């Protein structure tokens, strides 16, 4: 018996690309890089928890400690109830977890998952990168590993936006064809309809 996962419909390219942005080949690298970000953030979290005494920084030396124990980070610890590095680690873990969930045609079958993944990767990633860039001006010190995680965030944005874009194109196509927010709502939550199927077929035909 052949597995449903080999169904050709689950491995088609979708507009505006000539490949499938929901394929594992596209998603697994995102999850791996997000996991690297997660581990680096956890490492800085361990320092903020005082579970380790030193933190590695080959470029800025002790400045990393200044950043990780700054007033800003203390205030964030108070708001989030956990160290800001641990909170950032959650965002990266979310990138990886939401990247893993869903079939290889989830841009059509589970738009809510792709949109959630997109929100976690794109706006949150850009905000965190901007925050790191502000570090030098607000705190007056730089932190090498923070910069590494900011670069990871931006790399993830570039790697992930294609799938989110296809998903939004699909939802917009459904909206135009149905002229009904009710249908868009159902499609968003993964409930099938003739209109949604037709919209997806068009986008697959327009691929490449």
């Amino acid at each position, binding site marked *: 018996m052949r597995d449903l996962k080999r169904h050709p419909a689950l491995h088609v390219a979708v507009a505006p690309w000539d490949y499938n942005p929901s394929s594992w080949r596209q998603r697994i690298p995102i999850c791996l890089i997000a996991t690297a970000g997660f581990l680096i953030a956890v490492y800085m979290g361990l320092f903020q928890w005082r579970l380790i005494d030193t933190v590695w920084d080959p470029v800025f030396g002790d400045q990393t400690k200044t950043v990780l124990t700054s007033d800003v980070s203390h205030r964030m*610890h108070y708001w989030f109830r956990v160290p800001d590095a641990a909170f950032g680690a959650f965002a990266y873990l979310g990138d990886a977890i*939401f990247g893993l969930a*869903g079939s290889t045609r989830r841009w059509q*079958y*589970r738009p809510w998952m792709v949109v959630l993944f997109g929100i976690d990767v794109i706006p949150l990633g850009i905000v965190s990168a901007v925050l790191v860039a502000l570090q030098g001006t607000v705190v007056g010190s730089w932190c090498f590993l923070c910069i590494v995680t900011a670069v990871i965030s931006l790399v993830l944005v570039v790697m992930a936006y294609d799938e989110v874009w296809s998903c939004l194109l699909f939802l917009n196509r459904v909206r135009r064809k149905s002229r009904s927010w009710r249908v868009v709502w159902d499609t968003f939550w993964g409930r*099938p309809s003739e209109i949604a199927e037709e919209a997806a077929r068009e986008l697959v035909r327009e691929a490449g």
Partner: protein
Amino acid sequence: MWARVCEVMFGCWLAMSPFIFRHPPDEPRWWWNDFGCAAAVIVLALASFHPRTQWAHLLGIAVGLWLIASGYRDLATDPPPAVQNDVLVGWLLLMFAIIPNDADRPPAGWEERLREEKDQFRVPRSE
């Protein structure tokens, strides 16, 4: 079902937490909060394996929110490790509770349409 398996493990961690973080014996509410949430998480995750209660894991969102909210009970001091642990587990639960059971397969409605299209791909849904 990988998300459900992870949730059971989070539940086990929560059940061990009072001993790991040494809750004070005169704070029974701390103990019961962790034990109660642990039991709820494990039961909800396991119930999701049964076809009739397959949506039970969504109630894990409520447990996650409760655990996060419990971190904001006492704002006067910095949160002690036990409270931070509750908040962390809460966020983890929130993240995992929304993951569908057969996450890497299409949702049931779409999968039905795929099957109608090509009969030879018929497979049982439960794993």
